[in-house]
Structures are given as C-alpha cells and as structure tokens.
C-alpha cells in the first residue's frame, strides 16, 4: 500500500498552558474530502497551521507523501503541493481579483521575465476560468478592498487552486458567503476538486454542508481527534450532538 497523502504522527503544541494539539495522529488518503468539525478552540485551525509549517509542533511529525515536512517553512510545503485557503482571506488587497490569481501563477511557474507585463501571460485565460468557476468573473478587475466578504473568501480559494495543489486545506470555506449561495459554491468546488484530482481538508461549522459534501468527518475536541467516520456515522453520534452540533444550534 502506498503512503497516505498526508499523515501526522503524535503532534503536540502548547500555547502557554493551553494544549492546542494533543498527540494528534491522523492520515488523509488521496482523493477524499475530509471535513474537520468541533467546538471553537478545539485546535482545528492550529492543526492546519502545523500541517502547513506556519507553527512548529513541540513534538511529532507531519509527512506529505511519506516524506517528513515538519521542519519546512510554509513556502516549501506549498511548493510540494499543499495549498491553503484561510478563514480570514489572505489576499493582496491593492491588487484586483484577477491579478491575485495571476500573481499566484507567477509564483507557481517561477516567471522571471523582468519586462513582461503580468497581464499578458498565457495563463490569463486559465485564471479567468477559475474566477468564473468560483462565480467571481464579474469582479475580476475590482481591487480586493472593493469585494464583498464572500467574494474575498472565494477568490482566496481560487488563489489556492491556481497553484494546482494536490492537497487543499480550507478554513471555513463558506463562512461569509451568502447562505443562498453556500451549497452552489460547494457543489462547484467539490466538482472542481474531483476534476483536478485535488484532495481537500476543510474546517466547517455548517453541518448541512458537512453532511452533503464530505466523504469523511473528523471531530476535534480539546486538541485531538475525538471521532472519525462517514458523515452519517459521525453526525448521529450522541457525543457529537452534545459537544458540537448542540453548540452550533
């Protein structure tokens, strides 16, 4: 059997006295969409931060395709094929939506020509297509500060996709998106991920979304995975209803 796409072994990290990751061992297989749920402060975002090298665990390892990536800085992990979208969108606020994607391509391809206008690169069409996919083609030429919160979230995901990752980590991808649009966006997103053969991990609070779009669910509590299984199994579990769903409702 080949190595899982991402694997963590006994991750541990503390902030002051608080343990945000307590012996987290988790494997993520290729081609699945894993949802991470759990109460606030359970360590979900911290887990994404450790997996992408933003935080270094005090103990434990992160392996990507069987190779230890624990000591690497985020940019090197990204270069290996892990992209990330954020809870608070991380975009270049003075650039337009399209330019944010073009810059991502420039980074992906390592473009070096010092006098070629970024707008004239051949990947422009590909990026416009990405924007269409996340329903933001009409605001391609608006600067990020002019976009709505929801649009920023979507552009942030598009930027991550522009890197052509093999693993995409998303922190609450549909928060801030109008609720009428959430399912449509997730529909498109899941479809696009399948098409590009991208595995995804997403933190989510909306159980409706989790139920419909996740292949698997991991429940976080007090810095560790409390439970893991299919959406049907997990969402019916009494502990989950008490600790997680109860809180949201």
């Amino acid at each position, binding site marked *: 059997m080949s190595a899982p796409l991402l694997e963590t072994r006994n991750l541990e990290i503390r902030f002051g006295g608080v343990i945000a990751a307590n012996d987290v061992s988790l494997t993520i297989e290729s081609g699945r969409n894993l949802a991470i749920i759990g109460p606030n402060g359970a360590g979900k975002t911290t887990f994404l*931060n450790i997996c992408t090298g*933003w935080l270094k665990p005090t103990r434990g390892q992160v392996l990507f395709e069987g190779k230890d990536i624990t000591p690497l800085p985020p940019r090197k992990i990204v270069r290996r094929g892990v992209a990330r979208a*954020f809870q*608070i969108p*991380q975009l270049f606020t003075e650039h337009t939506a399209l330019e944010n994607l073009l810059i991502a391509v420039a980074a992906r391809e390592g473009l070096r020509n010092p006098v070629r206008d970024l707008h004239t690169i051949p990947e422009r069409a590909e990026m416009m297509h990405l924007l269409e996919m996340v329903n933001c083609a009409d605001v391609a030429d608006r600067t990020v500060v002019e976009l709505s919160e929801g649009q920023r979230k979507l552009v942030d995901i598009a930027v991550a996709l522009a890197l052509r990752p093999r693993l995409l980590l998303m922190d609450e991808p549909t928060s801030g998106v109008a609720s009428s649009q959430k399912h449509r966006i997730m529909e498109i997103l899941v479809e696009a991920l399948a098409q590009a053969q991208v595995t995804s991990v997403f933190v989510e609070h909306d159980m409706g979304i989790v139920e419909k779009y996740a292949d698997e669910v991991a429940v976080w509590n007090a810095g560790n995975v409390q439970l893991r299984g299919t959406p049907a199994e997990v969402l019916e579990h009494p502990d989950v209803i008490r600790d997680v769903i109860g809180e949201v409702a």
Partner: protein
Amino acid sequence: MNLTIFVLALFDGIAYAALVFIVALGLTLIFGVMRILNVAHGSLYAIGAYATVSLTGAFLAMGFAPVFAFPLMLVSAILVGVLLGGPIEWLLLRRIYDKPEVLQLLVTFAVFMILEDVQRLAWGSQPYFQAAALQALGNVTLFGVTYTVYQLILLPAVALTLLLGLRFFLRRTVIGKLILATTEDREAAQSIGIDADKVFLLTFIVGAALAGLGGALASPTTSILPGMGADMIVLSFAVVATAGLGQIEGAALTALLIGLGRSFAVYVWPETAVLVPYLIMVLVLLVRPEGLFGSPAARKI
C-alpha cells in the same frame, strides 16, 4: 594592553554606556508604549545638551556657584520634554497613530530635519564646551587610575536610578499600571475609562525628557556641535534594536555591551571605534532577529 589601560577602557565604557542608556531608555519607552520610533529623539538629545550649556553659562556669568549646573540639567531635560515633546505628540503624532508604520517613521523623520535646523539657528555651528559640572565633582582614584567622579559615579548612578525608578513606576504605581494596560490593549484600556490620549502624551513627554537629560548629562564631557543628534539617534537605535524594541532592562545590558565594546576599540584600533556598536548590533540581529531580549511576534492567521 596593560592593566591601567584596561581599567581606563572599562571606566570609559561604563560612563559612555550610562549616557547612551539614558537616551535609549526614552526611545524604547516611547516605542514600547506608543509603537512609534521617534527619529527626532537624537535632536531632543542635542537640544538638551545645548540648553544645559546655555543655561549654565548664563548662571555662571551671573556669579552662581558651579554646582548649579546640576539642577540646570534637570531643568533643561524638563524643558525639552514639555516644550518640545508635548507639542510634537499633541500636534503631530496624535494624528497618525492609525497610519502605516512607514508613514509614522516619515513624520518623525521630518521633525528630525526641522529640529536639526532649529539647533543651527539657535546655537550656530561652532562647538560649545561647558565642563563646570565635571570640575565641580573632582576626581577619584581607583585601581591606580584617576577618573572624574562625574563620569565614574554620577552618570552610572543616574542611569541605575532611572532604570530602577522606571521599573518601580511602571509596575508599582497606579499611573504606571495604566500605562502598561494601555500598551497591551489600547481599546480595552479606553473602555475601562483610561484616557489613552493622556497616557500617550505623558509617555512622550517623559521619553523626550529622558533624551534631553541624556544630552544635558553628556554636555560637560563632549563638545556640543551640529550632527551630534544624528549620531545619537542611530546609536541609541542600535542599543534598542540589539536589546529588542521596548525592552527596558535589556537596553541597560546592551548599552553596557556596546559602551564597553566601543571604549576597548578606542584603545585597540581607534578608527573602528564608531563601527563597533553597529557590528555588535548586526551580529546580534543575525543570530536573533528580534534582539537579545525581544520575543518574535507571532501573526495570527
């Protein structure tokens, strides 16, 4: 290097470190509380020196005893703090707290440019000397080396008093605690009724007065001339950066490190004396980018 020279270098270093520390203390206090690096801090130092020389000269001419030089230093420092520091904070800095850091830097740099000319207009470009305070205290012989009481005892004593006094003030008094609260979270402090504007004004006045006091205390031992402010801002920044911005105790140790490094260089390879502080800074920052005592700021994402 024989023992006498060693002791001399040691004494030089301590005296120099005490002066630099007093100035750096003001710089790091202002930064710690207000998150502003005051580039004009060096000018306040220079003006403190000029004011002391002028006031002392005037008093001596009126027939007062040389010991009056000491209270006049304090007067100069307070004048610098209140007459310059106050208006700078009140008229300028208050308008830019929410602006980008680079803009704040440009504003204090502009003030620096203005104050450099103010000095030249008020005091001309010829150097001033006024060593009355130095002579008033006489000399002391220690380890076979005769040194001035002023530099060997008074300056370090003042520096130490300020360090301990400021520590006590910030941690044990009500106003000090208000200042610390404002430093940690300005909005939260305001919501519990702290007047952050007043805290900032007070902090800036105290910080500016410390620069002025540094200049006042330096005046008997150096010639006062244009350009001394520019040298001092870079030097005190080196101390503050090496220690870690906002680190008060750290600044004291770093000042000592840099002061001693410089004074030993004077005896070993004089041309490099001015370079030593910066070499120390660069070496420290290469190993610890946030300074010896600073802690790296983690960004939340």
